[in-house]
């Protein structure tokens, strides 16, 4: 806190751009590394290339969309119960 300027590294657009690139590279590398794994298949489907990446992506997308959808019905104003 001695610096004159406040620590605002994560607010800067260039940092955010860097973080996006890191995230994409990390995801890419992890998917590529599936070439080197020899997963023992328990149920058949889980030996597919990039299976866990797909599960992570698809399930999160569905969860977000679903919660958004039911939020239209279930979200109410904060004073809902006070009325």
């Amino acid at each position, binding site marked *: 806190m001695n610096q004159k300027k*406040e*620590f*605002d590294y*994560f*607010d800067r657009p260039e940092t955010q751009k860097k973080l*996006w690139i890191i*995230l*994409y590279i*990390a*995801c890419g590398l*992890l*998917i590529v*590394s*599936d070439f*080197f*794994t*020899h*997963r*023992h298949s*328990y*149920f058949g489907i889980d030996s597919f290339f*990039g*299976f*866990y*990446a*797909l*599960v*992570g*992506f698809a*399930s*999160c*997308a569905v*969860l*977000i*969309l*679903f*919660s*958004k959808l*039911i*939020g239209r*019905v*279930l*979200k*109410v*104003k*904060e004073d*809902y*119960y006070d009325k």
Partner: protein
Amino acid sequence: MINNFPPAAILILGALFVPFFKSKAKNWYVIILPVAAFYLISQLQVGSSWQVHFFGYDLTFLRVDKLSKVFGYIFTLNAFAAFIYAFYLKDNTQHIATLFYVGSALGVVFSGDLVSFYFFWEGMAVASTFLILARKTPKAQAAGMRYILVHMFGGLCLLAGIVIYITQTGTVTFNAMTDQNLGTCLILIGILVNAAAPPIHAWLPDAYPEATVTGGVILSAYTTKTAVYTLVRGFPGWEILIVIGCIMTIYGIIYALMENDMRRILAYSIINQVGFMVTGVGIGTMMSINGTVAHAFCHIIYKALLWMSAGSVLYMTGKSKCTDLGGLYKTMPWTLIFGAIGALSISSFPGTSGFTSKSLIIDGAIHEHLVWVWMILEIASAGVFLHAGIKFPYFVFFAKDKGLRPGETNKSMLLAMAFMSFMCIFLGVYPQPLYNILPFDVHYQAYTFNHTIAQMQLLMLSALVFFLFLPLLKRTETISIDTDWFYRKGGQLFFRIMDKSFNGLNKSCERIFVNGFTGSLTRFSKDGKARLALIPLVSLWLLTGERGKKLEMKKTKVYTDLLKGTLPVGIGAAVAAIFIMIIFFLS
């Protein structure tokens, strides 16, 4: 003596002396108590017990086995950290309530019979309510009332079940229940209330976020985890628990995604995490039971850490809504770092305790070839990173800077968080000490190349989705309707219906009986005889041809004469004669 002394007694009796300590001595005293209890538990030999004969039953206040010991360790460890966290707190009520609460939780896990189990169980409900009421806001008071009412309902189910069970089996000993009958099902419902299983879960996200700063940290650990312990003890392998557990994992995520209040997000994520444990109990193999216990152990640590981090933010800023928070990384970096370690642990990030514990449950499902269960647990694992792993730290510490510059929280809070963070990473890197104290022998290696890569893929792609979908996750100043609607709004509706029906009934009764019937009775006793006497007279006059004004005058005269008793003698006799004739002709 030390070998059969119930650890619960240290905290419960110790609580009585809290008011005698002044200022810092009080805080040191409450830190030492769980340490003493932890030491005592470590000295207890597996198999030792302490029984008391009571009303014809042998009550077992102490039953030591590996299962009760591991829960005893984590309960006291967490209490130790929570009291360090609460080193700033001088409130006797909260300290005493906490000690009673944790002591009762220890009583539950070390009790060997259903009667003493029930007493400690109810003790927890009562003591924990004070941690909510201690916030002293009207909202907290109302939430506390709802909290205790729901737990009374659960407690009564449990009590009814226990009574039926004891009558049927003739024993009070608490072991795994195998028969599915009314008694055991009622016990199960009573426990599931505390496990926060939908649809009887809404008390948790309703009440916990209204608790005090330290109250939230304490509450997050004990009620749901004693329920998990009780399920492991009483209901291993009950398949219904797999279904309930899987529902809980998804349910918690969806609501946490909709939620705006950071402590309510964490409350819903408790439901999600307990879902994993309940599923593990339902699978019921040695591996999945080990997984459940290990996960409960690690969960208590990282969930307390998350509540501590959220509590620090609340303590420093007085705010807990994501819409009010943001950009706190600038002024609360340590709270952020510790909170992020908790967030990574709950997401089972490799290198943290969640990874070494949750994997046991998921592998338990795989070994039993439960493909759907496994699939749901993997989906839920991805979802955990979404709602607790990223959403909580992102919206509180990053996102849009709301101009809050609170400064770092106090040192004791940071110290407690540092300790819990260390535990998260330690158990994530070197889980063997935990594996050694699990109920069954563990031969498991979480860190295979395949498993680690698979988990990282799952998590990093979840992170990618979070940031890609960020516009959809924009926080709104809303709350979400949950099943507590039925007793909050439904309660009002019920009141209105009762008001309308019963008070309406009251009103019509008043109209009919009070004003109507009694009124006419009064009038009758007042001038009944006159009216009666007029009937034959008027018919006689009508027969004799009297009409109009003359008839009216005659009527009025006789009526007043009758009332005043100034009737000419002849008329009385005539009326009597007419009556006799009427009766004669009628009969």
